[in-house]
């Protein structure tokens, strides 16, 4: 099912963020969202996830989302494996989950409390979590922040491989580093 957003209007105080904004995300599409900061990239993602109620507009219903937030939002004191198991699965999934993470992170880091990992590694745990969860659409808010160029490419490859046929929308201010990937680029008015 395609995701249709129509007639979206939202304002913060006097500041109009969206005015009768419409957007269609095709099912299985791969979208990159760029816009100068303050144009509502984060707000759009939050509205889609149902974390913010817009002043007006029609939103797709019944969509299961998974997401990477601006901040990593990891459970403190728990391992990378625990972060993934929190959003999907019990003990039986632990092995599959470990293999999944090992494609993106060094094996030795998977059982350490995430607080002991570097910022870039924590970021990748958050990204892996969004891909591991069951969802129809994956939203990522600036997922590549704090990753060096090599890691960024490795992570982008991982995202593309693991999203399978799910719709993916990610916002970024590093479009030029992602030219090699088949993103459809969107921007906000």
């Amino acid at each position, binding site marked *: 099912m395609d995701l249709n957003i129509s007639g979206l209007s939202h304002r913060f105080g006097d500041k109009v963020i969206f005015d009768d904004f419409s957007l269609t995300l095709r099912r299985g599409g791969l979208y990159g969202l760029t816009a100068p900061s303050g144009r509502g990239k984060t707000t759009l993602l939050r509205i889609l996830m149902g974390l913010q109620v817009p002043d007006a507009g029609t939103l797709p219903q019944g969509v*299961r*989302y*998974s997401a990477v937030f601006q901040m990593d*939002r990891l*459970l403190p*004191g*728990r391992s990378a494996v*625990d972060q993934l198991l*929190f*959003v999907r699965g019990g003990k039986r999934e632990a092995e599959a989950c470990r293999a999944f993470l090992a494609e993106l992170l060094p094996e030795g880091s998977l059982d350490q409390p995430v607080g002991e990992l570097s910022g870039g590694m924590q970021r990748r745990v958050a990204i892996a979590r969004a891909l591991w969860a069951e969802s129809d659409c994956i939203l990522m808010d600036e997922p590549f922040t704090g990753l060096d160029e090599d890691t960024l490419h490795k992570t982008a490859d991982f995202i593309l491989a693991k999203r399978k046929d799910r719709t993916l929308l990610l916002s970024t201010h590093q479009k030029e580093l992602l030219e090699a990937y088949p993103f459809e680029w969107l921007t906000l008015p």
Partner: protein
Amino acid sequence: MKPVKSPRHIVRGLLIALFWLGIWQAASMLVGKPVLFASPLDTVKALAELLPTADYWSAVLGSLEHIALGFFLALLLGLLVGIAAFRFPLVKALVSPLLTMMKTVPVASFIILVLVWFGSKHLAVIVALLIVFPQIYFATVTGLSSTDKELLELARVFRVPGGRTAWQVYRPALWPYLNAACASALGMSWKAGIAAEVIGTPARSIGEQMYLSKIYLATAELFAWTLTVILLSMAFERAVRWLLRKVGK
């Protein structure tokens, strides 16, 4: 985490203990009347005489049972009502005056009221419960309110089952508050429980034995009972904190 104790620390601890025992001994010698102020030696002697008696153990067990029962009932009730109050604002508004009253009414009033209404049999249970319940309740509400809102959003977006969110997001937020509340409530439950027993003198209780010591002016025995309460309270606190750590892992 347990600090590693070096021999130097142990020696220092022993010296400090010896210093205060010395002060205690000197004070008792200055007073010069064992009836008023027992020396450390008198106290240990009295305790040694009490230890083999059935009355001693019956009183110890009686008080421990009552205070522990009161404490755990309060822990359970405080958690349940605290969770309900956190979840439903109406419950919070409803119980708020009751809790304020429980916090401000003097312990002595409670003791006397419980004596009048229920007699002395379950006195220590009810008093310990009344003292501990508000502390656990407030810790629960505050702890749950301190939960990271961003993690709750995450759980909502990912449709994480409620039970898992409770255990992995709410519980870790609640734990430090609950731990701190238990630590202070544990000591208070013993102090208030024993005070209640001294006033109500229920059978098979440390409080009753203390009251008898007072009547017979058996000061060394009173000191020995006090020492017993201190040791029991410390052991009980350790046991409960160990239990909390187990569940909190």
